C-alpha cells in the first residue's frame, strides 16, 4: 500500500514554498499581471528555481537536479495551486522534464533543472495521456506546421515538438512564431505555435516520451487541484464565519453548513487520491490506475469547490477584484487539462476490467 502521508522533509518543503508565495504572489498582483501583456510571474519563477532549485526536483543530481521524486513535486504543486501561481512549473519542471527524461537528453535536462531554460511540450493541454495528439510535418530536415493550445508556450525557451516521422524534436522558441490565445485560465495561458520550416534537434521517439510526460502531468495536476480546492474551501469558511445576514453569521445556516461539510469531504478525498497518484508515480506501482482515479476524482471536486466559493461569496464573488474567479478559471481549465474526467473514466474501464457495452 502506498504511503499517503507527508514526510517531515515534505512538510518543510511546503512551508518554504508557502512562505515564498505569501511574500511574492498575492492575489492582487496575480490579477494585475493577467491584465498586462506578460501574465507570467518570472521573478517568482526565478525565486522558485534559482533560489530553491525546485525546477530540478525530478532530475538526477548528476544532471544538476535534486534527485527527488514526484512526492516532493506534488507538495510544490499543492502550494502553487493554493496561490494560482502564474509560473510554468507543471509544464516545464514536470511535463517537459518527463519527456526529456524519457529521451535521455542530458544537456537540455541540465538547462531545465536549473530553471534558466523553460521548456514546453508542444502538445495541446487538453490531450489525455492515452489520446491522439497533433504532429507537425518533418520535411527535408525542417519542421512545418501549426499547433494550438500549447500551455505556457509564451515563456518557453525550448519547444518539444512531435513530428510526423515519429520523432520528438527540440526547437529554439525564437525560431517559431508563438501567438498568445485568449485563454479561459488567465494564469496558465495557451498559445499557438507556428513552425515555418525551422530547425529541430531530434531527441528520440515521440510516442513513449509524450505518454510518460502527459501521465505525470495528469497525476500531479491532482495535487494542484487539491491545493486549489483546499484554498477555496478555507477562504469560504473564513468569510462565512464573519459575514452576517439576518443578524446571524451566514455560516451558521444549516443548508450552508451542510454544503461546506460536503465539500470538506470531497477535499479530504482528493488529498488521498492525489497523494496516492504522487506516490505511485514515485515508486512505479499501479501508476496508470492511480493517476486515472486521481484525475477522474480531483477535477470535478476542484470545479465544485471553486463554484461553491463563488456562489457563497455572493455578489463579491462575481467581481473582478475578488480572486475567486482566478480559482474558478484555473479549476475549469484544469478539468480539461491532460484529459477530462470522462476521458479518464473511459481509460479506467479498461484498467478495472469494466468494459463498455
Amino acid at each position, binding site marked *: 500500500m502506498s*504511503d499517503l502521508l507527508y514526510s517531515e522533509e515534505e512538510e518543510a518543503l511546503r512551508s518554504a514554498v508557502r512562505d515564498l508565495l505569501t511574500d511574492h504572489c498575492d492575489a492582487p498582483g496575480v490579477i494585475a499581471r493577467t491584465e498586462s501583456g506578460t501574465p507570467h510571474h518570472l521573478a517568482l519563477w526565478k525565486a522558485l528555481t534559482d533560489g530553491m532549485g525546485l525546477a530540478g526536483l525530478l532530475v538526477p543530481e548528476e544532471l544538476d537536479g535534486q534527485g527527488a521524486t514526484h512526492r516532493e513535486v506534488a507538495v510544490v504543486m499543492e502550494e502553487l495551486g493554493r496561490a494560482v501561481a502564474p509560473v510554468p512549473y507543471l509544464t516545464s519542471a514536470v511535463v517537459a522534464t518527463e519527456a526529456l527524461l524519457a529521451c535521455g537528453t542530458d544537456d537540455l535536462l541540465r538547462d531545465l533543472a536549473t530553471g534558466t531554460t523553460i521548456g514546453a511540450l508542444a502538445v495541446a493541454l487538453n490531450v489525455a495521456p492515452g489520446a491522439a495528439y497533433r504532429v507537425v510535418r518533418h520535411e527535408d530536415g525542417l519542421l512545418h506546421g501549426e499547433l494550438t493550445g500549447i500551455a505556457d508556450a509564451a515563456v518557453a525557451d525550448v519547444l518539444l515538438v512531435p513530428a510526423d516521422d515519429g520523432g520528438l524534436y527540440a526547437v529554439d522558441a525564437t525560431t517559431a512564431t508563438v501567438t498568445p490565445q485568449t485563454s479561459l485560465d488567465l494564469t496558465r495561458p495557451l498559445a499557438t505555435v507556428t513552425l515555418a520550416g525551422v530547425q529541430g534537434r531530434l531527441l528520440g521517439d515521440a510516442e513513449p516520451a509524450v505518454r510518460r510526460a502527459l501521465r505525470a502531468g495528469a497525476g500531479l495536476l491532482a495535487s494542484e487541484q487539491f491545493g486549489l480546492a483546499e484554498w477555496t474551501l478555507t477562504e469560504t469558511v473564513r468569510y462565512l464565519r464573519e459575514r452576517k445576514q439576518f443578524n*446571524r453569521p451566514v455560516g*451558521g445556516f444549516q443548508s450552508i453548513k451542510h454544503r461546506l*461539510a460536503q465539500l470538506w469531504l470531497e477535499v479530504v478525498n482528493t488529498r*488521498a*487520491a492525489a497523494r496516492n497518484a504522487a506516490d505511485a508515480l514515485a515508486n512505479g506501482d499501479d501508476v496508470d490506475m492511480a493517476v486515472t482515479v486521481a484525475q477522474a476524482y480531483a477535477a470535478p471536486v476542484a470545479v465544485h469547490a471553486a463554484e461553491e466559493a463563488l456562489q457563497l461569496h455572493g455578489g463579491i464573488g462575481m467581481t473582478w477584484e475578488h480572486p475567486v474567479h482566478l480559482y474558478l478559471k484555473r479549476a475549469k481549465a484544469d478539468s480539461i487539462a491532460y484529459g477530462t474526467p470522462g476521458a479518464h473514466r473511459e481509460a479506467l474501464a479498461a484498467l478495472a476490467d469494466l468494459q463498455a457495452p
Partner: protein
Amino acid sequence: MTDAEELRNRTRELLAAHPPASTDRLDFLRARFDAGLAWVHYPQGLGGLGAPRSLQAVVDAELEAAGAPDNDPRRIGIGLGMAAPTILQYGTEEQKRRFLRPLWTGEEVWCQLFSEPGAGSDLAALGTRAVREGEDWVVNGQKVWTSSAHVARWAILIARTDPDVPKHRGITYFVCDMTDPGVEVRPLRQVTGEAEFNEVFLTGVRIPDARRLGEIGDGWKVAQTTLNNERVAIGGMRLPREGGMIGPISKTWRERPELRTHDLHQRLLKLWVESEVSRLTAERLRQQLVAGQPGPEGAGMKLAFARLNQEISGLEVELLGEEGLLYDDWTMRRPELVDFTGREAGYRYLRSKGNSIEGGTSEVLLNIVAERVLGLPPEPRTDKDVAWKDLAR
C-alpha cells in the same frame, strides 16, 4: 515498552501452548485474552499489554498465518466497538474484570439501549427514568432500534436520573442485565422483511448501583465515548480494492455483458472511482492513526460509506433489470448479526437505507463536521437552559 519482536514471540508462545488445530475455539480465545494479545493497547490483565495500538497488526498477522480462530468481530460488534471502550474509560476495576473478557471472547453479546421513540437524533431528550431505591436503580421506559437485543446478555443503557436539570445534565449511564425481570424484547420488522432491530420495554427493572458507569448525572459525557467509537467502527474498516459494495456489482458487470448499457456504464465508473477514493481516504486515516497523528477524516467516513452503499446498491438493482424486479426472501426472521452486504441486491438496497440513519443521521453528522472540523457556528439551541421536565414533548 512492548515492541513488535516481543509481541511476535508472545504470539508464538501462545500458539505453541494452544495449537489451534487441537484446541477448542473458546479455550483458545480465553488463552489469547489472558496472554494480553486480544487488544494489545488495553492494560495488562484486561486482554492487553499497554502496547501501541498499531502493533495489533503484528499479532493478527501471526495468528492468521497459523490459522487461529478469531472472536468473530461481526457477531460482537456492539460490544467490541462501543461497550468495551466505554467500560475501559469509565468502569471500575471490578466492572472491567467482570465484563471485558466474556465480551471479547463473544461468550456474552452486548446491545445498546440509547434511542427512544421520542429521542433519536435528539438523543439527550430521552425519557426512560431511573429512580434510586437503596442500592438499586429502578428503570422504566421504552427503547427502540436495538440491534441484537434478542441475543444480548448485557446492554449499555442511558436513562434520566434528574428531570429537574437541562436535558444533557440529568442522564446516567448503566449496564443493564438483559435477562432481568422487566426487560421485554419485541422484534421490530424492517423494510427488508426481517427483524434485525427490536423495541425494548423496561418495566421496573432493578439495576444495582454497582453497574453504573461514571458519575450520576454524567451519562451524556460517557455516551459521547460510545458514540464516537461507534462511528469509527461503522466507517473505518480497512478494505482491499473493490472490498465494499462496489465488489458485487463489478462482478455482475463482468459476468453479465447482456445487462450492460451506456448509461449504467457511466454511473458505474463514477461510483467505482468514488469507492476507490473513499478506500484511499480510509487508508490514509489509518496511516495517520498508526503514526500517532489522528486526523478529522473519521468524521466523514461514515457519511461517505452511507451514500456510496445506497447509490451502488440502487444502481445494482437497476442493472439486474427483470431480476431487479424480484426479491430473494421476505420471510420475517431475526438474524444474529448485522449484515450490510449479505444476500442479494434488493436486500442490500433496502438495508443500506439505514446506513444514513443508524449511528447518527447523515444530517447530524454533517452538522458535526461543519461545527467541529470547519468551526462554523453551532445550531441555535432553545432547550439549553430549560429543565428537562419543562420541555415541550
